[in-house]
């Protein structure tokens, strides 16, 4: 059903992160001729894995959520017939939060989690039940109430206890890189429901299994994936896309282009000021990206007995002032105060990460090793005594590493900072004023995380299929 009259492809997708791959699979499945171009040598974006000294490490994304019946990931993987090809395991508990006074476990059984929270905060019993019931049963339209609110506003509607609010918010600070007073209520509540209440899923042997399976399926469906290839320009004529220019100057034409790349690159470099209105460029120039992360990778010879269960994310919260903790991460003090660590499902490695600001290559060249040792010491003194004696391999990805591998602006881990004022920025809608050009991925300001970008990839594909009048529900 391809309708490529005089064009090389129906659709070209820039970026083989999860959003680009899902978008490509849906379009190819509908019979369109699709090319995905990726500058890195493997697909996955932030969802890749790598091998060093016999150890396999997940680079950034280390688990995913929203795989319950009706969840976004379940719907996408089912629709692409991947549910039976990738072995998806759920680690239970998905998350544990450790603070000076509490240890709160997030179980696969939400009722059990509710009971645990109620035992720790008996005076908030009813509010805890109401909060979780609202998040898990609200109609889609009900979330529109949150559009201008912060997550703090939302929590204040339910709870009095500041310690409880901090415990609920620490995984949101880690996974959204903003404290409750700054992150939008919508993003905060989605991270809570999709990453915590329905989190802990893992694909195959390592996270790379997920993009690899999507890439394989995409090729089976007739799609072409070109890796190690940078797109230099999106060609536009009379306000309509014509295709892209690749790094060696090759022109490839298409009726539609979907950019799953960093939005600044899309607008400033791939399109440029000849194509995009000055007001739009000005608006995007003034937008704030999310913080990046510093990720620690450790290979260990024998697991210390004090290690948490493999596959569980453990959050360390040193105090309950998340606003100050965020500022210390943003301003990059010499210490790491809060962090997440995880003993890998294969029980051979540890991944830990902390929010961190962007600094250039020179800065990290001097500081990386020192930061690695500070981080190991921190884990050792807070959660895993004796850790340093078991480490046989250590390395880290700095914010600059994230930029280098993905070209994401300032190594931003989560696209734009999800302040309520930046949520759903009209200039970054999936449909753009340029005919045939669509945006997808976390730089659209809509949502983030693996389920989020999978949803956006699928939705961008649906928009194109609706335009082509070939969309089937």
């Amino acid at each position, binding site marked *: 059903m391809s309708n490529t009259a005089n064009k090389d492809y129906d659709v070209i997708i820039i970026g083989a992160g999860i959003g680009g791959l899902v978008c490509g699979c849906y379009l190819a499945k509908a019979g369109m001729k699709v090319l995905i171009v990726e500058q890195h040598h493997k697909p996955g974006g932030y969802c890749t894995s790598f091998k060093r000294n016999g150890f396999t490490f997940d680079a950034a994304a280390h688990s995913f959520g929203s795989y319950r019946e009706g969840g976004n990931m379940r719907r996408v993987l089912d629709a692409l017939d991947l549910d039976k090809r990738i072995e998806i395991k759920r680690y239970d508990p998905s998350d544990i939060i450790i603070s000076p006074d509490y240890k709160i476990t997030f179980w696969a059984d939400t009722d059990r989690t509710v009971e645990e929270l109620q035992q720790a905060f008996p005076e908030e019993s009813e509010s805890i039940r109401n909060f979780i019931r609202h998040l898990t049963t609200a109609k889609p339209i009900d979330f*529109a109430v949150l559009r201008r609110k912060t997550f703090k506003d939302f929590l204040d509607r339910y709870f009095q206890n500041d310690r409880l609010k901090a415990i609920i918010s620490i995984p949101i600070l880690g996974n959204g890189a903003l404290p409750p007073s700054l992150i939008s209520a*919508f993003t905060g509540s989605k991270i809570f429901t999709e990453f915590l209440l329905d989190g802990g899923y893992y694909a195959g042997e390592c996270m790379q299994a997920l993009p690899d399976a999507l890439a394989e399926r995409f090729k089976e469906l007739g799609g072409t994936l070109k890796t190690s290839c940078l797109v230099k320009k999106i060609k536009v004529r009379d306000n309509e896309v014509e295709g892209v220019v690749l790094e060696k100057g090759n022109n490839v034409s298409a009726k539609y282009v979907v950019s799953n790349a960093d939005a600044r690159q899309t607008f400033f470099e791939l399109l440029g000021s000849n194509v995009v209105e000055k007001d739009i460029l000005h608006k995007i120039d003034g937008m704030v990206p999310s913080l990046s992360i510093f990720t620690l990778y450790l290979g260990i010879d024998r697991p210390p007995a004090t290690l948490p269960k493999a596959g569980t994310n453990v959050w360390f919260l040193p105090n309950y002032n998340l606003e100050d903790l965020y500022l210390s991460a943003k301003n990059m003090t010499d210490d790491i105060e809060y962090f997440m660590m995880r003993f890998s499902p294969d029980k051979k490695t540890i991944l830990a990460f902390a929010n961190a600001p962007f600094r250039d290559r020179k800065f990290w060249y001097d500081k990386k090793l020192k930061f690695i040792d500070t981080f190991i010491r921190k884990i050792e003194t807070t959660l895993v005594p004796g850790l340093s004696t078991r480490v046989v391999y250590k390395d880290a990805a700095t914010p600059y590493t994230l930029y280098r591998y993905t070209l994401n602006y300032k190594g931003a881990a989560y696209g734009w900072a999800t302040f309520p004022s930046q949520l759903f920025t009209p200039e970054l809608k999936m449909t753009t004023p340029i005919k045939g050009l669509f945006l997808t991925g976390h730089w659209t300001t809509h949502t983030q995380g693996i389920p989020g970008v999978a949803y956006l990839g699928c939705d961008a594909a649906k928009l194109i299929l609706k335009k082509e009048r070939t969309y089937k529900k």
Partner: protein
Amino acid sequence: MTNGNIESEVISIISDISGFDPGEITPETSLPDDLEIDSIKAIELTVALEKRYKISIRDSDIPEINTVGQIIDLTKRLISHG
């Protein structure tokens, strides 16, 4: 701005966000069931209407929105209340 204009404009905004052709959208159309308006699109839609008509949709109005007709009526009411 006539009521007819508002109706066709709101339908055009809903079409833009949902991706469905304006011809498929009538006042009886259900936003979640027929047009797949989920939580993300529900926010996009309310934000787009508030911006276009310089109106403020109250929290208490939101749970009442289910069909295209209901959101057209709400928009008209909020515009006329200035």
